[in-house]
């Protein structure tokens, strides 16, 4: 456990190595990344095993001193972040392996792996941080990694715009986090989790302040996790290479917001207003994004909106007091969403398009990818006995137990939507006949299949870590952590799992009827309610609204000020200049070369000076 600091450093090493020598290593640079993450994974697994039932471990050193306060940097191992370490290193490792094949032939191959290393480093650093300042630093660095990878295809204008958007949107959230951390520092006198929790427990911080700080920190989480209203960057982020989407925009970074809320849970619990905010934002995001997902045509965008929606689920769980449920879903989601993205990548790799309307009938051609995709889809839809089923149940139960029945209804509806659009996707891609010829469609090779297979297994099995039947291993494990959460109503009313199953089956069935069997017309919605469907298809015009208000507002404001700068400030300067020039001109007219006039002016000046002198010297008093 003392070696935990090596876990993030190994990927950093790979980053530096590839930055310096990547050009020479070429394709071999993949091995540097894979090796580093594999080592990290093994270390992380060791750490987690050592953590099982053990105590938290913390090591830190002074980094900077502010007056008497010493700001420290270090690392901490507790149940929550040990779990996260394993998830991150595992997904990262699998994505590295997958990318080796997926990115083959790209002329900036080594850069891609360098960026992956940087991102993995930042994400692991974030997870290991024992204090909020360090969290913030790595928080920004994961944003950087995400930015670089989204903009990996730098020559594509869409990628450029998406990268910029991702960075700026998350930065808006980060500012909230920034302010929250600073306020918390002055309230609690420290950035350390322990001290902050102690201050909260001692009641030294006023409850209004706690609410304010909790909401500010949540704003940071909203930005990173793509929650409403800062969600628009996440679907655009799909401009990055697909493995990146799997790693960053499904499994790890976007979950950082959820992780942050989980890590700061005592703070949120201390304020019911903050909890409500988290739950409401999460719930609305879940249904909102799911509804957009219904209409999208790009395979990755559907998955992206599904990610937003699932993250909303996690927030809803946390906001409803379902700490374990949130973290549990975070874990299962990481596996099945990564699986879905990788499978989608495999499909894209095969057919070279992302538009699902151009796909179809791929079940027979992609004999391994398709079943794996099905596993992922079943899991996310909450099909019984798949991992998503268990974690989603927990969330529903937590929400129900919390007594916010409106949100509960939303969550159930979102579950239905999820099942529907996932299978809409599945049937459109794999069922039926090819709507278009794609030339030779071949199954991906080993390095791409293997990670998907591993994830497929996990997507099924991960659910059994915490079930009402076999035992709540995960909850027990997490309860050793510093975050003491209230005992949850895991054993809620029995009808909830049944309802959830029914809803998910209904969604799948509907999708089957519409897209598999084509019994129902696909277009009944767009035909019966064209305006609504357009609104949904255009993602509720959120992007357009932001563009019209914030973006244009800022630009307009800037232009206004630039006019102020140019005409008012510059104008004042130029005005002074011309005034002095004018005075000089007038003065030079007066100068006609006559000695006596010069003399007279000199005398006048002398008199004036003398007057001043006399007045100042008190002559006239």
């Amino acid at each position, binding site marked *: 456990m003392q070696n935990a600091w090596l876990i993030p450093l190994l990927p950093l090493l790979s980053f530096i190595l590839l930055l310096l020598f990547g050009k020479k290593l070429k394709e071999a640079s993949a091995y540097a990344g894979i090796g580093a993450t594999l080592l990290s994974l093994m270390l992380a697994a060791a750490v987690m095993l050592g953590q099982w039932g053990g105590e938290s471990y913390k090591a830190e050193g002074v980094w900077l001193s502010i007056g008497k306060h010493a700001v420290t940097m270090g690392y901490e191992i507790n149940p929550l972040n040990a779990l996260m370490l394993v998830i991150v290193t595992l997904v990262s490792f699998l994505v590295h392996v997958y990318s080796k094949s997926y990115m083959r032939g790209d002329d900036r191959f080594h850069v891609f792996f360098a960026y992956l290393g940087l991102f993995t480093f930042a994400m692991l650093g974030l997870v290991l941080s024992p204090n909020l300042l360090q969290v913030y630093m790595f928080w920004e660095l994961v944003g950087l990694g995400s930015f670089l990878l989204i903009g990996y295809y730098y020559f594509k204008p869409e990628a450029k715009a998406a990268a910029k958007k991702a960075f700026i949107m998350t930065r808006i959230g980060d500012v909230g986090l920034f302010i929250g951390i600073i306020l918390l520092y002055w309230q609690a006198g420290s950035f350390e989790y322990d001290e902050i929790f102690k201050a909260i427990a001692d009641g030294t911080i006023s409850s209004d302040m706690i609410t304010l700080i909790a909401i500010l920190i949540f704003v940071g989480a909203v930005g990173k996790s793509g929650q409403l209203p800062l969600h628009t960057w996440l679907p655009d982020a799909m401009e990055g290479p697909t493995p990146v989407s799997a790693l960053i925009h499904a499994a790890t970074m976007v979950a950082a917001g959820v992780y942050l809320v989980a890590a700061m849970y005592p703070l949120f619990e201390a304020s019911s207003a903050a909890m409500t905010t988290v739950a409401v934002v999460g719930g609305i995001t879940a249904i909102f994004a799911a509804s957009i997902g219904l209409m999208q045509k790009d395979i990755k965008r559907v998955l992206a909106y599904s990610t937003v929606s699932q993250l909303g689920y996690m927030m809803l769980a946390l906001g409803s007091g379902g700490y374990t449920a949130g973290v549990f879903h975070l874990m299962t989601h990481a596996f099945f969403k990564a699986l879905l993205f990788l499978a989608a990548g495999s499909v894209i790799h095969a057919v070279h398009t992302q538009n699902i309307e151009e796909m179809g009938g791929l079940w027979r051609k992609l004999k391994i990818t398709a079943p794996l995709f099905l596993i992922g889809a079943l899991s996310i839809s909450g099909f019984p006995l798949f991992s998503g089923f268990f974690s989603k149940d927990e969330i529903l139960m937590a929400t129900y137990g919390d007594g916010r029945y409106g949100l509960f209804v939303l969550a159930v509806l979102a579950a239905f939507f999820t099942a529907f659009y996932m299978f809409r996707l599945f049937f459109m891609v794999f069922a039926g006949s090819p709507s278009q010829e794609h030339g030779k469609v071949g199954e991906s090779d080993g390095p791409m299949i293997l990670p998907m297979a591993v994830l497929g297994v996990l997507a099924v099995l991960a659910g059994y870590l915490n079930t009402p039947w076999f035992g709540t291993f995960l909850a027990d494990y997490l309860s050793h952590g510093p975050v003491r959460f209230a005992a949850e109503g895991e054993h809620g009313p029995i009808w909830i799992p049944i309802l959830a199953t029914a809803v998910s089956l209904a969604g799948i069935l509907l999708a089957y009827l519409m897209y598999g069997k084509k019994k129902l017309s696909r277009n009944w919605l767009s035909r019966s309610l064209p305006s609504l469907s357009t609104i949904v298809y255009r993602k509720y015009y959120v992007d357009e609204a932001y563009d019209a208000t914030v973006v244009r507002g800022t630009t307009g404001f800037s232009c206004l000020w630039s006019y102020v700068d140019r005409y008012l400030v510059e104008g004042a300067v130029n005005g002074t200049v011309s005034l002095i020039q004018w005075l000089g001109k007038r003065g030079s007219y007066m*100068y*006609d*070369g*006559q*000695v*006596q006039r010069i*003399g*007279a002016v000199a*005398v006048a000046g002398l008199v004036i000076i003398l007057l001043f002198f006399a007045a100042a010297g008190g002559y006239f008093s």
Partner: protein
Amino acid sequence: MNSIPLSVYLVLALILFCIGLFGALTKRNAVIVLISIELMLNAVNINLVAFAKYGAKPGLTGQIFSLFTITVAAAEAAVGLAILMALYRNRKTVNVDEMDIMKR
């Protein structure tokens, strides 16, 4: 013996200086301007000599200074008049207001 206060001398000098100044500023004839300047110098000399007698540190220094001033004034008068002659030769006038070569 010392019934005449210092300030009376100073005021006399001031009056003469002001007359000289006024003349220097308003007279058109260059010769008169020069001679007005001489008058101003004289006023200063009165001050020097007066301070030599009534000053904080009486002594001969003031008188010697006035001698130097007179010498310089003489030199100035000579050179000034020479310039005047040269100007007159070129422009056929001694009116100060027609002497505006300095403008160019």
